[in-house]
């Protein structure tokens, strides 16, 4: 009953403007039924997940709103003692970062001297990379220096990256590389 009355009322904005308190039609009188029925995505989300902004090192708290298995909105976390709910332009664009129109979802492969990308199955790519690591390591291994002291390493493999990665990821990277004898492990922190 109420809803019907409301819709009827909303169909006559001029009447509402003339009869109601909103004489200049700056608020309720100007609102269409469509607008009235809108809800923020933050309210219709299934769940909210606590996150941290991935851009700079301020460490702003983020709330990721998820609906039907998709991120629908990312907001600042008002509980954070650092950011107190704020996000900067980059942090506010986090959802679009995750859903960029140019984001890649498939492995791409360029063979030596190739002139175009090719498709490659993820599992095959992983095996090929593992094989290359093993072969290059074997080929470039330095067991000892000229003075006979151990080196246990390869300078044939290098790695760069990590400042936007998680601590846990950097830990596995360093652990695996070190066990493989890869010492040229570097990071944005240097740059």
């Amino acid at each position, binding site marked *: 009953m109420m809803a019907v009355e409301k819709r009827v009322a909303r169909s006559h904005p001029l009447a509402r403007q003339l009869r109601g308190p909103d004489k200049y039609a700056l608020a309720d009188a100007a609102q269409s039924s469509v607008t009235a029925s809108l809800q923020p995505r933050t309210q219709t989300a299934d769940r909210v997940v606590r996150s941290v902004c991935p851009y700079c090192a301020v460490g702003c708290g983020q709330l990721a709103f998820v609906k039907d298995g998709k991120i629908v909105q990312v907001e600042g976390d008002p509980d954070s003692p650092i950011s107190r709910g704020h996000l900067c332009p*980059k942090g506010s664009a986090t959802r679009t970062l995750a859903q960029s129109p140019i984001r890649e979802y*498939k492995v791409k492969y360029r063979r030596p001297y190739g002139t175009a990308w090719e498709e490659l199955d993820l599992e095959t790519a992983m095996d090929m990379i593992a094989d290359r690591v*093993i072969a290059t390591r074997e080929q470039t291994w330095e067991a000892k220096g000229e003075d006979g002291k151990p080196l246990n390493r390869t300078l044939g493999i290098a790695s760069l*990256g990590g400042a936007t990665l998680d601590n846990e990821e950097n830990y596995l990277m360093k652990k695996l590389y070190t066990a493989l004898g890869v010492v040229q492990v570097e990071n944005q922190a240097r740059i």
Partner: protein
Amino acid sequence: MPGLGTSFGRGGATTFQQDLQNSDCILIMGSNMAENHPVGFQWVMEARERGAEIIHVDPRFTRTSAVSTMHVKIRPGSDIAFLGGLINYILENNRWFDEYVRTYTNAPVIVDARFQDTEDLDGVFSGFEPKEDKYDIASWQYDDMAMHGSAGRRMGSAVSGGKQDAHPGEVSQEAQNQLLEHGEPPHVDMTLQHPRCVFQLLKKHYARYTAEMVERVCGTPRAEFLKVADALCRNSGRERTSAIAYAVGWTHHTVGVQYIRAASIVQLLLGNIGRPGGGILALRGHASIQGSTDIPTLYELLPGYLAMPHKENVDLANYIEETTSKAGYWYHTDAYMISLLKAWYGEHAQPENDFCYGYLPRVTGDHSCYPMMMGMLEGNVKGFFCVGENPVVGSANGPLQRRAMANLDWLVVRDFVEIESAAFWYDSVEIETGALQTEKIKTEIFFMPAADHLQKSGSFTNTQRLLQWHHKAVDPEGDCRSELWFYYHLGRKIREKLAGSNDPKNRAVTELTWNYPTEGRLAEPDAHAVLREVNGWGPDGKALDAYTKLKPDGSTACGCWIYCGCFKDEQNQAARRKSRHEQDWVAAEWGWAWPANRRILYNRASADPAGKPWSERKKYVYWDEAKGQWNGPDVPDFEKDKRPDYVPPDEAVGEQAIDGKSPFIMQGDGKGWLFAPDGLVDGPFPAHYEPEESPVNNPLYAQQSNPVREQWPSANNPMHWSDGKPGADAFPYVGTTYRLTEHHTAGGMSRSVPHLSELQPEMFVEVSPALAEERNLENGGWATVITARSAIEARVLVTERVPDYVVDGRPTKVVGLPYHWGVKGVVRGDSVNDLVGISADPNVHIQETKAFTCDIRAGRRPRGPALRDLVNDYRARAHLPLEE
């Protein structure tokens, strides 16, 4: 950050962002905080609302300047002259915090009689070996102290392999000061009058850094400099504190570490370290740049700032001996290292096999990112993982980066979008000019799409050493995977392929502990399990709560000793989210900060030597005699029950050898270092040197630039001559690079985002009206900026926000360049790093991008081979080898 590590003991920000609200004065220098750390900047604004003075010293007038109480201009690359001027002002006008300086710093210590200052040797310190471009630091020691320098022991010591080994830069390093051993207390003169005491040496070193000299070197008007100096001094002392915030505007120089050292000296003299509203806040640019140095993907470090073994460290005993300090917490290096080896090699790590130390690879020199790229050019580096990093846009000398990667056998790029570093083989300036041809590039490339932070769980360590956990919200789509997934499964496959091998180099891989639980459809490794290993466990298998529990007998395991405690009580402490509304301003129950959840480091210095607060206004951590412990809103950075009047017995070692009034507990002498006898390769005091490429001769010394800076001169990396040399006038302007609010570094995370790309769509160059007139540049029109490396085009923004300078009597103009663009993405443009040559700080191997020389002319750049002709024309005029 060896600048901070050497001065105070730990390579991390000494304070946290929220504490800025307690400052009475904040000096922002080498940072455009309002634009690059906008949300953290709210704490600067809180301070201003409470009446604090906010001073922005910067080559440009930015949005940080606009809301500061004072903007003071400074020529790019001259900050040590400015900071040295502050030191001189403090000393000449008796403005130092006397009791703090005498008790908490090494001001009274007598230095070796052989030490000679830059004042004695016209710009170099004693020990300079010109043929090798390095220092023998023996004469920089404290008087009568034994010198134990040997290869691998110390980063600062001369190490074999040409370039010195040193610790990284935005990076920290902690392991130092091992030369100071208990039982050999340094000679001191508490009256600070001895001519060889640190205090007098400091006075002498900076005596010529007068306000007049600051004006001459920095182009900063004398009166403005004096206003800054006075504001800092007025706002420091018992009742007041000042803070300093910096970013890569300080680190990106051939003398960058010494910029931070100079700031450290200012803050120690003014008594601002370890106190609320004080400190030095290093502002990092990436979500976990602090974390990726704590748990390092860096060549010279193992987790927790343990040194990577050097070739000379042939066994564990030698490694431990070389990296252990008698006093301070580095006495327990054996416990940290053996616990790491137990975490990595589990049951295979036993006392009789050196806990598998023998499996670890050894470093022999500088293996950092630029030598690594040189190794690719030479064909020695054959395989390369490029993980969330875009070096062909983000690293100096883009043309060299692309040529290096085009010489690889194989390349793995992991990112969200197809970044320039994945596309260089068909889309780059070199393809356009014909310098590289697609069908002649042998590199095999795997582009692996990455999961984003909402698609995985894990922790970031922010700029204030705070670990914060982010929870997975959704599964990654398609082939997108986390790095955790990629490295875990890559390691699993390699281990399967090597299984059964008896070759010791393969056993180093197959005996590694690598059995992480996985979950879900994608078999994602459990990040909690990894963090728990980082935290470590005791003999009972339970998570440890503090690194003080680590043992050197193999009974404990710990992946990163400084993070021990982050999984205390089997709880992921990084995931704690007690609202700010439910706790005090320190918010100790939000996330977890290393070490031991401390928020202000060295906070014992917030109390006077007797343990009383310096003032009620600046009360923080203090000694409670009734309870017999240190109290306050933060975790005391001191043994909780160590009395302020504690004097170590003669036989004491480790932390027990640090007395009750020495707040810098990681240092071998417990003191803040005004003078750095060890830990740095380019001097115990910061001295002003000109950038590698400079428009002027060094007004302070005959020595033009840092004498031990790193250089890689070649036809691929030509560096301009500085003033006075033939050809220097080809590049008359000073170039400097910076970021914009709407973009993120090399653009992979912002030029892929339509909203951000729309806000900052196009590469531009900022010039002053005078420069625009000099070169006929039109606002909104095109300009070409040229160096010997390349030429790029950009839209012109003529603005008075870029001031002109007079340096040493000569007009000097600045070209401002935001560096985010590249050839891929939603918006595209030329890359500024194509212009920048590679030269670096010798301590940390960080390149100099914040000051170089260039030319600018109206109009767009030539396309194709004509671009090479233009650059070669400039190279010829600049007396440099031509590009092939």
